């Protein structure tokens, strides 16, 4: 049968990984129809998905993540994968945090491909050495060290002025206030937390970062920012583990040319971002067969390994051989397991894992505007945040 | 080859009523000439007949059929536009043959027709040109050619010869006359050329301000104008209007003029004047009726000699115009160039009132109908 897969994995590495899956599907006697739509973290792809769903012609499978899966489930578009899941023992191979995201109404409707850790900090040790600074482990420390670095003529923080990058940075700072604070703010959206002094502190710290970025940061793509770290123009970047791909592409070695640390103050914590393929209801039996096979193959170790080696993330599946992965990935895997038990494994709000897109967007607006505004105080920002979240939840 | 009935046709542009109820009826094969001052509605009427402007009111019938709302191409009319309206993208030949092509005339026949028409209009050497490369008169002839190539039920010509030189115009006029005699097609024709009007028309309709003033044969219009306007409009130079007092002479009414010598002119229909005895009326007398004394007219019934003072003389080739002033009205007299006179001279002229007409000073209507 045929499966049409709508996704936004278009970069070279991702495409290579996808091709593995495609090959496997072909070997299984199916036809893979590739419908790739890149752009803005899948925004365009979601538009296409909606238009196709409305036209009554949705693809068999689409890359959807986090709470959005629930929304599609609500609309009744998704198909049941419980059979495959049962055969593949998904309940056991997947950590419960992951599997709960893949289920709608208690049934599997999507298959996870990876887990990203978002709260990473990437640093260029050379720059630190030159500036006589040391890697910060708290945000206060970050500020002192950054000042040194800046004085030495480097850009302390490589950053791109796009809403989601601002959010990534903001999220890391908020996380440092503790996982409970984080959850209360970004999962339960408690008004009290949102208006708390802690939140004001978070905003203040966040604003403090403004002076550590270079003047040309506006609108810069994240990978350009990464290359600033690679080139030794900048010292650090707060970015998810996908940044590793840039270092690798530039021929840099983890631990030598660059180092990865958890974002300051979040060493035991793990903000996750899971990619997954959701399966849509299709008519023909052939197609359904193909769909089930696809779900099965995604969870196979071969695919999980190749894909995640390419993306810098870690497999969604537990108990995989880890020898091919690098040190940063190992650290990520360890943290993933550890944090799961301590309650420090939290969904990334900046990447749409925590809240629905409405709330996410509302928070982003406040955060990014605050970061770029000259006059707004942290108190005002907190107030705006609380109101925006409330409005979005209406 | 069609008769045309125009019934109470009105046309408004916004507030302006351009045609105010036109009634004209012409017979199959008739040659009607429309004349009238610039802006009186001639072109508008032509457009209405052709169906290019929807009339605001009234009816137009061709061959007994009501065509008021028929589409232009169903009326089978060919027209020469005052503004030419040549197809800019087509050559002269294509312009001419387009109408035939539309009527599915075979190619060969079209070509023959084009060259026939082009020869007639003397534009044979221009057939390959585009309109933009032609002179004014050449464009006008192409516009003519476009109409003449066809054999419609009716021709409408809107000042088709205005930009041609006199010689060519005479030739074209003759061609049109021949064509009309040969084909007998009904023709409606607008012209400002008096000679054209007089020589071509079966009947002339004189229009003014969107109304027909008089509809009649050329001779009727010329000799027997319905009112002052028609009298003054037709004839070039125009008819003279001389204020004259109605007096009694030898028991019949006559007209007294204050020329150099006070003169009393007899009038062919004295009875028409009887009601106006003592009043002033306007005597209409064409310039050719006031001439140098001509021996062979001496003593005729309505011929009177009188002295006038020459104001201006205008040599016009075949004749000389002598302008004088009678009762404050400028009066043109047509004299032989040989009869020389200088401004300021007082000379004798012969007034022939055999074709004179009189008008009411107020209403400007004919009094002697």
């Amino acid at each position, binding site marked *: 049968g045929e499966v049409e897969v709508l996704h936004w994995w278009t970069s070279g590495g991702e495409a290579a990984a996808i091709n593995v899956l495609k090959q496997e599907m072909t070997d299984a006697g199916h036809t893979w129809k590739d419908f790739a739509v890149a752009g*803005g973290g899948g*925004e365009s792809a*979601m*538009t296409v998905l*909606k238009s196709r*769903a*409305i036209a009554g012609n949705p693809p068999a499978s689409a890359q959807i993540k986090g709470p*959005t899966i629930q*929304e*599609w489930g609500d*609309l009744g578009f998704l198909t049941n994968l419980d059979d495959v899941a049962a055969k593949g023992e998904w309940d056991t191979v997947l950590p419960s945090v992951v599997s709960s995201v893949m289920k709608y109404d208690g049934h599997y409707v999507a298959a996870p491909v990876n887990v990203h850790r978002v709260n990473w900090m990437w640093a260029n040790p050379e720059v630190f050495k030159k500036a006589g600074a040391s890697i910060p482990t708290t945000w206060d420390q970050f500020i002192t060290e950054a000042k040194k670095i800046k004085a030495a003529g480097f850009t302390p923080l490589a950053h791109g*002025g*796009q*809403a989601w990058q601002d959010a990534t940075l903001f999220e890391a700072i908020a996380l440092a206030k503790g996982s409970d604070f984080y959850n209360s703010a970004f999962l339960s959206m408690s008004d009290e937390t949102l208006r708390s002094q802690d939140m004001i502190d978070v905003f203040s710290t966040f604003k403090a970062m403004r002076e550590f970025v*270079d*003047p*040309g*940061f*506006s*609108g*810069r793509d994240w990978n350009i920012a990464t290359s600033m770290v690679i080139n030794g123009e900048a010292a650090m970047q707060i970015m998810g583990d996908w940044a590793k791909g840039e270092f690798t592409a530039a021929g840099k070695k983890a631990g030598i040319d660059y180092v990865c640390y958890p974002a300051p103050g979040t060493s035991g914590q793990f903000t996750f971002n899971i990619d997954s393929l959701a399966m849509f209801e299709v008519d023909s039996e052939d197609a359904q067969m193909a769909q089930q096979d696809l779900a099965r193959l995604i969870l196979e170790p071969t695919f999980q390994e190749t894909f995640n080696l390419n993306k810098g993330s870690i497999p969604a599946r537990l108990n995989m051989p880890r020898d091919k992965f690098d040190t940063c990935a190992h650290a990520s895997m360890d943290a993933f397991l550890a944090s799961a038990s301590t309650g420090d494994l939290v969904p990334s709000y900046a990447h749409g894992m925590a809240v*629905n*897109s*409405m709330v*996410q*967007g*509302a928070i982003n*607006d406040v955060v*990014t*505007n*605050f*970061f*770029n*505004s*000259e006059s707004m105080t942290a108190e005002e920002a907190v107030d*705006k945040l609380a109101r925006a979240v409330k*409005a*979005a939840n*209406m | 080859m069609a008769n045309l009935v125009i019934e109470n046709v009105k046309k408004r*542009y*916004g507030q302006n009523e351009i045609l105010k109820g036109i009634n004209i009826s012409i017979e199959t094969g008739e040659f009607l000439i429309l004349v009238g001052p610039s802006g009186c509605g001639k072109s508008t009427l032509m457009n209405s007949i052709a169906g290019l*402007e*929807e*009339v*605001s*009111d009234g009816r137009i019938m061709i061959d007994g059929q009501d065509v008021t*709302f028929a*589409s232009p*191409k*169903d009326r089978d009319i060919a027209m020469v536009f005052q503004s030419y309206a040549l197809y800019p993208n087509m050559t002269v030949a294509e312009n001419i043959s387009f109408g035939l092509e539309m009527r599915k005339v075979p190619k060969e026949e079209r070509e023959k027709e084009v060259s026939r028409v082009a020869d007639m209009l003397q534009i044979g050497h221009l057939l390959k040109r585009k309109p933009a490369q032609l002179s004014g008169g050449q464009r006008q002839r192409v516009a003519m050619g476009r109409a003449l190539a066809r054999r419609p039920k009716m021709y409408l010509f809107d000042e088709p010869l205005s930009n041609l030189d006199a010689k060519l115009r005479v030739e074209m006029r003759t061609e049109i006359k021949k064509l009309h005699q040969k084909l007998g097609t009904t023709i409606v024709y607008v012209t400002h050329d008096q000679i054209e009007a007089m020589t071509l028309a079966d009947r002339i309709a004189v229009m003014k301000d969107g109304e027909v003033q008089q509809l009649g044969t050329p001779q009727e219009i010329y000799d027997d104008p319905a009112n002052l306007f028609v009298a003054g409009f037709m004839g070039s130079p125009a008819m003279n209007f001389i204020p004259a007092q109605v007096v009694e002479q030898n028991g019949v009414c006559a007209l007294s003029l204050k020329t150099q010598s006070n003169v009393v002119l007899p009038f062919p229909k004295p009875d028409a004047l009887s009601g106006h005895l003592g009043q002033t009326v306007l005597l209409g007398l064409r310039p050719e009726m006031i001439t140098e004394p001509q021996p062979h007219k001496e003593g005729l019934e309505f011929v009177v000699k009188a002295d006038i003072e020459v104001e201006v003389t205008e040599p016009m080739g075949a004749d000389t115009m002598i302008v004088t002033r009678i009762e404050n009205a400028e009066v043109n007299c047509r004299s032989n160039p040989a009869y020389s006179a200088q401004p300021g001279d007082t000379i004798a002229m012969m007034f022939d009132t055999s074709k004179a007409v009189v008008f009411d000073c107020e209403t400007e209507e004919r009094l002697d109908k």
Partner: protein
Amino acid sequence: MTTKSANSGSGMTQSRRPARLSLADWMPKLVMAPTVITTIVCIYGYMIWTAVLSFTNSRMLPTYKFVGTAQYERLFENDRWLVALSNLGVFGGLFILICLFLGVMLAIFLDQKIRAEGAIRTIYLYPMAISFIVTGTAWKWLLNPTNGIEKMMIEFGFEDFKFNWLSDPDMVVYCLVIAAVWQASGFVMALFLAGLRGVDGEMIKAAQLDGAGIFTTYRRIILPSLKPVFFSALVILSHIAIKSFDLVASLTNGGPGYSSDLPANFMYTHAFNRSQMGLGSASAMVMLGCVLAILIPYLYSELRGERHE
């Protein structure tokens, strides 16, 4: 240009018209029919649908839970929307004016029997050809404070040259204007060039004899006779201004902050990325309302005025 005055006939005349008309009479209407139908369905139908959605609580996909004017209230409490609206004012105004000016100017210049007119014309026009998906990147580089024009000028020796509009929330909208003008002015030029090529030569001769110099001839005689072209250009440009979406998405993505957001981006973001279809629809309706408010009077005068000609 006596227009065919079928529509100015009095009602009485119309009623006297024979009921049965030939196919030829129906032709114009028939030809327009497909456009009329698609317009009614695909433009006005959808517009009404959008209007309906703007009164609902639609999120990811349309639903029909009506919430009154709540979405509009939210919209006008939304800072981002207000920024987007005011940006549209600045951006739209400047963009249209500059494009018109440049377009007219270049068209006139190109009309002076220029050698290599074809090449130059293509150069002015080519920005239209290149999708903003990529040009956005090039412009981002050019306007980038650290390594774009600023750097170039400094390297040329203008040490104090500063050009950081792209990262200045107050100035970033002018960056949009620059890029948009760059892209669209060539087409305006083409539009006017085509218009200029249709102007009657005799009329220009008459103007020259009347003593008008080149400049005056253009200003008083030629350009006024290109009024319909202005009309086209204006509609096209306001269309581009209102719908500038790619431009923002690729050049600034709304940033810094959301200081360079435009309504089209706001609308798209909310309706499609943030699952706030209701709010998105409301913003679309407001956008449309603004356009209508400006355009209807203009259209009215434009289409009315011509009746007298």
